[in-house]
């Protein structure tokens, strides 16, 4: 695949700061501020290692989502978890973090956003920088992969 040039961090940050902040606000409500700063500091640390500028939006949203998951888990230790309505008997959101560790990043983000945070597909698509169909597909193939894995173990 053709490589896309990595932009200067300033333009990357300006392009993504508002959508990332909105995303974190949806996931975390108040307290999104710390997660925002952590997201972009982490992105800044990893920036020199990036080799392709093609999926920057999905990349930074994945970082943000991962940080939000950790933050949610930290806030509500297991046992005090509120019951979250889940389809297919999937576990509530705090459990999804570690369970999905091995999934490809896009599928992982889609699964966690859909079943963990209950986001509609249009918002997941916005977060991943892909179409709604692609978001739906990523979530369903992620779920399939998880099922296959749980059969094996």
């Amino acid at each position, binding site marked *: 695949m053709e490589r896309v040039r990595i*932009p*200067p961090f*300033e*333009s990357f940050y300006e392009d993504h700061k*508002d959508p990332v902040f909105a995303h974190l606000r949806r996931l975390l409500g108040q307290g999104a501020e710390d997660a*925002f*700063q952590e997201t972009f*500091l982490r992105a*800044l640390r990893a920036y*020199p290692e990036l080799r392709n500028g093609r999926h920057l939006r999905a990349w930074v949203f994945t970082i943000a989502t991962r940080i939000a998951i950790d933050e949610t888990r930290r806030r509500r230790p297991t046992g005090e978890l509120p019951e979250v309505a889940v389809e297919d008997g999937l576990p509530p959101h705090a459990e999804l973090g570690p369970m999905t560790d091995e999934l490809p990043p896009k599928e992982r983000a889609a699964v966690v956003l859909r079943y963990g945070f209950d986001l509609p597909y249009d918002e997941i698509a916005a977060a991943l920088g892909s179409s709604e169909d692609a978001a739906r597909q990523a979530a369903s193939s992620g779920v399939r992969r998880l099922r296959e894995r749980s059969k094996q173990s």
Partner: protein
Amino acid sequence: MTNVPLELDTHFRAAAAEEGLLDVAYDLVESPLGDLFVGVSDRGLCVISYEADPDAEVERLARNFGSRVLRSPRPVDPARRQLDEYFGGERRRFELDVDLRLARDFGRTVLEELGRVPFGEVTTYGALAAKAGKPKAARAVGTIMNRNPVPIVLPCHRVVGANGSLVGYAGGLERKETLLRLEGAILA
């Protein structure tokens, strides 16, 4: 869409610099010569530019110094303070580290010599060439002055023609004259 609150934005930009994660931190500095685009790397001041198009300047810095270029005012503050003092007539010498990594060989020697030309005095292209070890390279010195990465702080405005004419200045002759007047090098 919920936009990032200004305070959070400011906080992140400061934290990025504090953690040493930036290749270049930059900001705009107000001056009597117009806004100056000023950039600082971990080695020191690396750019001062007149009438810069910030986007183009950021692109250029990313190519030359690394992609982590971010507007972050705090690292620029020492340069801002000294420039303010200079324009306010309270400073004759800059005490700032300068990052000359892009200058090589003769160019670097010339810029280092240029840093020794004192406030309120002028020298000539030929004299500066001679000091840098190549008395016949006046023309090359002109080119080096034209590409001086940090004008004002490295005072290329103090370099004039052998007949005393101002010759040229990357920021325009008017600015060169203003600077020399400020320093009392031009009395009329």
